[in-house]
């Protein structure tokens, strides 16, 4: 293959349609006779449902169908607990709506479908639900107390799961330590607030018992399985049009709504559309998990970390369906970039009357990086060492690659010392020390930091068995995803991807790979959209999640294009009377070596394989189409966890050092980010602009998370941040320019040396900001433990320090 296109920022395939407003989203689709749905949601954080009546709503002209909890129980079945609920000790049936109790404000309770949305909104007012209010359990500390009101009586406790994992000799490490450094840390609830909330259309053909849904879901498997389980249907078609951002929001809870909308379509006999509004999305589409950490590091006086242990309390909200994801995701970057061999973690998943938690850009990984990078700063402070030196002495060295971490991850490649050193140099660390001295003399609070983190990529479906090896239904293992490629009759190439995408330029990037394999320009390659489960070669890794794309989709496209090329050569060699091994593709034609006349254009080839049997070699299948299902060839060892609980949580490891410079307004507590620099290793960069886009976006999110965005509940479990105005996301004005430097170490394990970039900077950036703000406030003795660092929080920290 050539490398003409890989590594260059080729013209965007999807950019023009989005820039000109021609994207094709679920809400753009209009079906004949389609109804509009609205969902009735619980106003209570915790209540028993005593009764429900939709008869008045059904009498409103224009209303075609309504669902109340008794209908949901009658016409659907509960979901099976999936891999996200690993560790659940008793099966908890969870239906698409609340049926006996509501456990969070905004939980869906009932639904209507009407001829237009205004009528459906009017009808909501006419559905009556009788609630017996129960005490709201809002804080994990209260939820864990004996005698607390219970979310699930059958679990006999709000602690829905607890467990621990130990790798290496943790007791030995703490015995051998010169010093134990301790810290309590906390990360709050936030979301990625995609521009497009949930959007669903369901259409049921009763004659053939076929259900078709259009949905902006990130993971077709979740939708497919949910519909099969809940509706007991066999023939299901999931179509995924353009998606306006995912980030994990559209993986899990969206399945409830697909079932609700499908039930409305089945009951009314008409297609039904439901477009979630922003407030619904904020209250019920899923939040990241608030996590509290009690961290201890065993260290030598030179800063060497012998062992790390931590306790984690996860506030998982009002559902058991994502019980342990934030804990198990700690396995993905448990050792971060450090060669520490002894690590132990202990976790509690605590139910509260808040929105259920869901995967969110990095899931537990920002928390794990936060643990490491905060404790590194604390170690430096207590040992009076430079925070850079403490990190340096503990980093895995490039000559140790591939490196096996204590929990069984195999780091494929990376030069962490060089990433750190480059960040230190490019941010001008030594100069900043001087500048800070001068600033402090003038009363200014200037601070800076350098942190480092790995970014795992390519999910291993068996990871969750590490905490729950006795899982009844195997969640799968490793990963599978496919791609199909076809030489069209006119000589162009059609490519069908195995996964949907959320706007990360998958069409552009995959066309580069196919273009280089086939040596034809990317503009001759058309990517077929939308994703259609009836046609797409999809497997368990057909998920716009888990940083899967770079591994599984690129691997599948490369494999499919390679198969196609071989077949092109087989047929062309026969037609040209040449040796297939000597042929090459150039300028849209297959050429025989040394002969200017012995060539066959791809268009001619197209005519032959689809229409001219006499010219086909005997015994060769007609047509030029190839499907390739990719599996990661280096998935062993530790693909499936054994008794030692070691597991490859993910398969590739990008890394980045982040450097931040901030100034804190002493009077108002407002933090301004003056500089933000990232030195990243994303392996072979296929499309620099696409990768940079992922880095900008994820850095902007992580910085905003650190500086104030997040969900706020009051003591009654009422969510106060119901709109983007209240939620407090940073605007472009507050978001710094992100300086990006690439220092790739290509992966020896992947098709092109590529590694992940999607979760990216969202993992280390909260730690980078916390570290820089603490550095700025050092003259006042302020310690940063909790996020977010909103102006009022920082002002309070300054006030408390002065007392």
């Amino acid at each position: 293959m050539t490398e003409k296109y890989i590594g260059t920022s080729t013209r965007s395939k999807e950019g023009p349609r989005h820039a000109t407003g021609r994207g094709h989203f679920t809400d753009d689709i209009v079906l004949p006779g389609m109804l509009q749905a609205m969902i009735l949601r619980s106003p209570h954080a915790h209540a028993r449902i005593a009764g429900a009546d939709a008869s008045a709503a059904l009498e409103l002209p224009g209303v075609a169908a309504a669902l109340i909890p008794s209908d949901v129980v009658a016409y659907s079945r509960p979901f099976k607990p999936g891999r996200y609920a690993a560790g659940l000790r008793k099966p908890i049936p969870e239906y698409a709506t609340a049926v006996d109790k509501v456990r969070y404000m905004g939980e869906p309770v009932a639904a209507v479908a009407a001829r237009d949305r205004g009528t459906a909104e009017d009808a909501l007012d006419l559905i009556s639900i009788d609630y017996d209010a129960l005490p709201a359990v809002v804080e994990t500390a209260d939820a864990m107390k004996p005698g607390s009101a219970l979310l699930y009586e059958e679990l006999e406790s709000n602690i829905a799961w607890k467990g621990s994992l130990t790798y290496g000799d943790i007791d030995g490490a703490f015995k051998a330590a010169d010093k134990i450094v301790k810290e309590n840390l906390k990360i709050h609830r936030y979301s990625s607030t995609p521009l497009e909330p949930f959007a669903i259309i369901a259409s049921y053909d009763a004659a053939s018992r076929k259900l078709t849904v259009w949905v902006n879901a990130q993971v077709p498997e979740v939708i497919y399985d949910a519909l099969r389980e809940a509706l007991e249907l066999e023939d299901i078609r999931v179509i995924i049009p353009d998606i306006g951002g995912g980030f994990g929001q559209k993986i899990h809870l969206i399945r409830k709504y697909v079932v609700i909308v499908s039930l409305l379509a089945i009951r009314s006999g008409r297609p039904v559309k439901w477009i979630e509004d922003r407030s619904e999305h904020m209250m019920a589409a899923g939040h990241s998990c608030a996590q509290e950490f009690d961290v201890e590091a065993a260290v030598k006086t030179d800063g060497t970390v012998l062992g790390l242990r931590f306790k984690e309390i996860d506030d998982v909200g009002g559902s058991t369906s994502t019980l342990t994801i934030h804990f198990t995701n700690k396995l993905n970057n448990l050792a971060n970039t450090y060669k520490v061999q002894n690590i132990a973690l202990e976790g509690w998943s605590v139910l509260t009357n808040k929105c259920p938690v869901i995967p969110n850009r990095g899931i537990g990984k920002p928390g794990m990086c936060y643990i490491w990078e905060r404790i590194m700063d604390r170690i430096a402070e207590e040992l009076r060492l430079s925070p850079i030196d403490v990190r340096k002495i503990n980093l895995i060295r490039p000559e140790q690659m591939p490196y096996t971490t204590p929990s069984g991850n195999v780091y494929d490649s990376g030069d962490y010392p060089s990433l750190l050193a480059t960040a230190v140099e490019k941010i001008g660390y030594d100069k900043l020390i001087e500048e800070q001295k001068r600033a402090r003399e003038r009363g200014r609070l200037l601070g800076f930091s350098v942190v480092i983190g790995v970014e795992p990529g390519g999910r291993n479906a068996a990871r969750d068995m590490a905490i729950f090896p006795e899982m009844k239904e195997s969640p799968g293992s490793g990963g599978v995803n496919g791609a199909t490629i076809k030489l069209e009759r006119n000589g162009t190439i059609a490519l069908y991807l195995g996964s949907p995408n959320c706007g990360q330029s998958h069409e552009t990037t995959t066309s580069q790979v196919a273009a280089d394999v086939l040596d034809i320009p990317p503009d001759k390659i058309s990517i077929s959209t939308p994703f259609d489960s009836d046609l797409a070669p999809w497997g368990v890794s057909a998920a716009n999640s888990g940083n899967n794309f770079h591994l599984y989709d690129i691997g599948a496209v490369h494999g499919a294009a390679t198969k196609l090329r071989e077949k092109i050569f087989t047929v062309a060699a026969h037609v040209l009377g040449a040796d297939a091994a000597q042929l090459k593709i150039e300028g849209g034609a297959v050429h025989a070596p040394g002969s200017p006349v012995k060539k066959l254009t791809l268009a001619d080839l197209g005519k032959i394989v689809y229409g001219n049997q006499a010219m086909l070699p005997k015994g060769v299948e007609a047509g030029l189409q190839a499907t390739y299902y990719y599996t990661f060839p280096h998935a062993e060892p530790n693909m499936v966890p054994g008794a030692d609980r070691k597991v490859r949580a993910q398969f590739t490891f990008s890394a980045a050092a982040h450097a931040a410079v901030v100034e804190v307004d002493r009077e108002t507590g407002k933090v301004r980010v003056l500089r933000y620099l990232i030195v990243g290793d994303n392996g072979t960069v296929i499309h620099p602009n696409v990768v940079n886009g992922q880095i900008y976006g994820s850095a902007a999110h992580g910085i905003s998370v650190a500086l104030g965005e997040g969900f706020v509940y009051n003591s009654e479990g009422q969510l106060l941040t119901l709109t983007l105005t209240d939620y407090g996301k940073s605007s472009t004005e507050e978001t710094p320019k992100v300086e990006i430097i690439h220092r790739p170490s290509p992966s020896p394990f992947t098709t092109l040396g590529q590694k992940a970039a999607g979760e990216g900077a969202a993992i280390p950036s909260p730690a980078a900001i916390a570290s820089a703000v603490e550095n700025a406030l050092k003259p006042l003795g302020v310690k940063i433990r909790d996020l977010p660092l909103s102006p009022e929080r920082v002002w309070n920290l300054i006030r408390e320090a002065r007392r």
Partner: protein
Amino acid sequence: MIPAGFEYFTPTSLPEALELLSNYKDDVKILAGGQSLVPLMKLRLAKPRYVIDLSGVGDLNYIREAGGAIYIGTLATHSDIEHSELILRHCPLLAQTAATIADVQVRNRGTLGGSLAHADPAGDMPAAILALDAEMKASGPSGERWIKAEDFFVGFLTSALEPDEILTEIKVPQLRGGKSVYLKAAQRASGFAVVGVAVRLRLAGNGNCDDIAIGLTGVTDKAYRAKTAEDELKGKRLDDEAIERAAQRVMDRIDPLEDINGSKEYRAHLAQVYTARALRAALAQK
């Protein structure tokens, strides 16, 4: 996101609008720019049965100079005000304040009259209007009356307008030789004032403070003039000590709001910080 049903009127004259208002005054909303009302209706937080759209009423959108004052029609948009040469020349505080409101789209549709009549405790314009000693013309069935800015803001989303009155005009006196500034701690997303301070001052020949007005918004349930703070400065030299002393007084007899944008303590603190900053910024003007 679809408003509840309502009956919509587009009167073409002020008397017609006033008559509709008198008829439906119990459950009616006046639509000016719609930048506050329409979102509230779409969220069904407001469900008026009748909506009277003023856009068809002629001559409500103007900015004129007459007899030592600037007269602004109630439908003048924030954009009109931001870019008006008359306003930039005679009461630049109003233009500067308008430029800080939300975003261009909102400023292009939102109106001065709508913003004042809505009396949002976090609105920007009320602070400027107070600092400028403006007056509001209320038109009702029995004629017109002028309401001073200080008397106009009554409470949370409540102005001194009677249910059958429409705010039709704002009069801003031309004040010469002044310095003025509007500063705010803005809500991150909306730009609404968590705390906003408008300062207008004039120095005497000896450099002492000759005239001072401080309008605050966002702090409590309505925008207000900080009279005791002003008294600290009148006739005095505006040094750091005086400014700090004045800033300490802006919370006199004020019960601050508390919401997710700020606790009572933080709001009170911000009011003092931004008052001092606004005073310094105004003094620094040429």
